[in-house]
């Protein structure tokens, strides 16, 4: 592996502290990932990416910047990548998924802030994540109070643009989001110096749609009721990395993986024994390297077959209409697609419950684990309706609240173990 220390130093990172993360990650990855049996060969790509997670992609981004391209860091699936790509920009995810960053976040944020927000702010202020150093501009959105106020702190030392996401789904809200997308496009044009043309935007829409279709193929293979071709832990990694990778390469690798998974389904090659209980996980996103819950579930005698979360179906479901001739129509098509996302920030939000019931059927799940990161008031509260609807539909459900810290893993193991025993 290449020595990245010079690159990190040049990025102004706190390299010594960062070494601590570099030392811990391979151990965690080995425990959670490499200990799995019967993994698809295609996972080698993602193993490779993780082996140098703060090296490979950051180096690519730096190369692109040398060519004059701009990098936009985002925190949420609502920010339309298409607009950035159409202006020859690059999008990278910024969400922090490690406890490592939380203490630095807690220096400025209230303790009662969700760990994802604390880790993200901590990664920036602690200078221990290259993606936060590389991004030329951060693009936020108003999906939760924790992030909204955190942007004000982040914005103190990096250009910060915020999109105002409506919190309802009326016709006027879809129009409002379209206007927000148009305003963002203008900002992106200014910032990159490139004009967004309908041709460029259509090309970008197709590119991102292809990535969504490829991820959907991977998930499609997980619907097989008799065979589990990939562990949930592996599938989660694929989704997590998708936020950081080049969209064309992501689609290519996902399609290759899907080929293999489809073949595995034909041959009956499963990661788990026949009869292993199928679990869907719903709720708050799991930013990389948050693998905690999947690992516990899959070492407690069950398999995760679907994630109804931003690092899951909410990332790739629904496509943007292609082939539209004007920017105005394209912005509307983008708004329509993004507003189909049933994030818990909307009220009312019946679509999310409908999604979950539909996915439970499609993925033939035996039980659902509804999880929320501590202090995520939105998903926590919505858990009530989600769990009630599942119970009414006769689908066993376990509600869990957790954070990045491993302190509760034994308790989670008991709860999840009991849940799996309950499924029979």
């Amino acid at each position, binding site marked *: 592996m290449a020595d990245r220390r010079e690159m990190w130093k040049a990025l102004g990172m706190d390299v010594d502290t960062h070494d601590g993360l570099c030392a811990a990650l391979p151990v965690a990855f080995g425990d959670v990932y490499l200990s799995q049996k019967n993994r698809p060969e295609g996972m080698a790509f993602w193993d490779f990416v993780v082996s140098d997670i703060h090296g490979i992609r950051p180096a690519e981004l730096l190369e692109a910047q040398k060519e004059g391209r701009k990098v936009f860091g985002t925190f949420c699936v609502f920010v339309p990548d298409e607009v950035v790509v159409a202006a020859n920009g690059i999008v990278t995810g910024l969400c922090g998924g490690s406890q490592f960053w939380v203490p630095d976040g807690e220096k400025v944020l209230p303790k009662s802030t969700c760990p994802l927000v604390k880790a993200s702010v901590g990664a920036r202020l602690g200078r221990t994540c290259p993606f936060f150093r590389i991004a030329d501009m951060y693009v936020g959105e108003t999906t939760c109070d924790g992030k909204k106020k955190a942007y004000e702190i982040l914005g103190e030392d990096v250009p910060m643009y915020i999109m105002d996401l409506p919190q309802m789904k009326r016709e006027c809200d879809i129009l409002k989001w379209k206007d927000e997308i148009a305003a963002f496009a203008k900002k992106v044009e200014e910032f990159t110096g490139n004009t967004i043309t309908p041709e460029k935007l259509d090309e970008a829409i197709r590119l991102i749609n292809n990535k969504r279709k490829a991820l959907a193929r991977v998930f499609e293979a997980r619907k097989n009721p008799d065979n589990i071709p990939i562990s949930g832990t592996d599938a989660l990694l694929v989704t997590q990395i998708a936020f950081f990778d080049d969209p064309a390469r992501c689609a290519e690798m996902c399609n290759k993986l899907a080929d293999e998974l489809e073949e595995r389904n034909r041959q009956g090659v499963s990661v788990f024994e026949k009869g292993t209980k199928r679990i869907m996980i719903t709720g708050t996103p799991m930013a990389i390297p948050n693998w905690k819950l999947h690992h516990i579930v899959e070492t407690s005698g069950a398999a995760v077959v679907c994630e109804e979360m931003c690092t899951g179906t909410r990332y790739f479901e629904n496509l943007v209409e292609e082939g539209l001739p004007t920017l105005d129509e394209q912005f509307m098509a983008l708004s329509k697609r993004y507003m189909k996302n049933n994030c818990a920030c909307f009220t009312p939000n019946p679509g999310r419950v409908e999604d979950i019931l539909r996915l439970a059927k499609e993925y033939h799940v035996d039980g659902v684990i509804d999880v929320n990161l501590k202090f995520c008031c939105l998903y926590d509260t919505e858990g009530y309706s989600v769990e009630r609807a599942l119970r009414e539909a006769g689908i066993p459900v376990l509600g869990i609240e957790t954070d990045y810290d491993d302190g509760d893993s034994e308790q989670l193991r008991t709860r999840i173990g*009991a849940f799996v*025993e309950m499924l029979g």
Partner: protein
Amino acid sequence: MTTYYIGIDIGSTCAKTVVLAETEEIALSFVLPTGWSSVDTAEEIRRRLCEAGYDPAELACVSTGYGRVSVPFARKTVTEITCHARGAMLLHHSRDLTVIDIGGQDTKIIRVEDGLVKDFMMNDKCSAGTGRFLEVMANTLGLRPDDMCDLARQGGGVSISSMCTVFAESEVISLIGKGEKKENIAFAVVDSIVKKVASQANRLEKGGPVCLTGGLCESDYIRQALGEQLHTQVQAVAEGRYAGAVGAALCARDLMKKG
């Protein structure tokens, strides 16, 4: 010759062992403090079992509880939810019930329907509403937990507002400082834990009789106070503290039946 099955429930405070006969009668039961090493406790349990003529090397044994993984001679581990449910079913002769177990470090509410766990709930990682809370407060009052529960019956008029064990302890200390009567403080402590458990239980759909298991089921006052909060009669049996171990023994029997 009757076959026997061993169930071991290593909780955070106490380790409970039961030997169950094929007839589902308890042939042997004993409690040991868990101490600081579950491994040592497991070894002590093995020694005692052998002494009584039940060699775990020859009999099917299942372990449960927090220390379940530390029992090398157990053939299988099963979570305490499943074990408490099965044990309570046997001890209460019912296949439809709601089990409340106030354990040393967690409280479980389990809904059993038609002989199967239908739903369950456990407290979060903090110790509010658990046996540990009671123990810490009893210590502060210089009482044994069961004596504190008895004393609580005579008290009233005081409440503790803090859910956190650490803060609640400071509250108790300031009540002592103010010269509040011991029985009133004891009342406040029990009242606090009972309300916490009841509010947790109220989040779960209840059905069938409500049965209290675990060490605290031996306190009539707790049972009664919990019943008042839940507006129902709360049942308890003498062997209630062994519910988890009995359930583990029943799981051990399943192992043998399945071969």
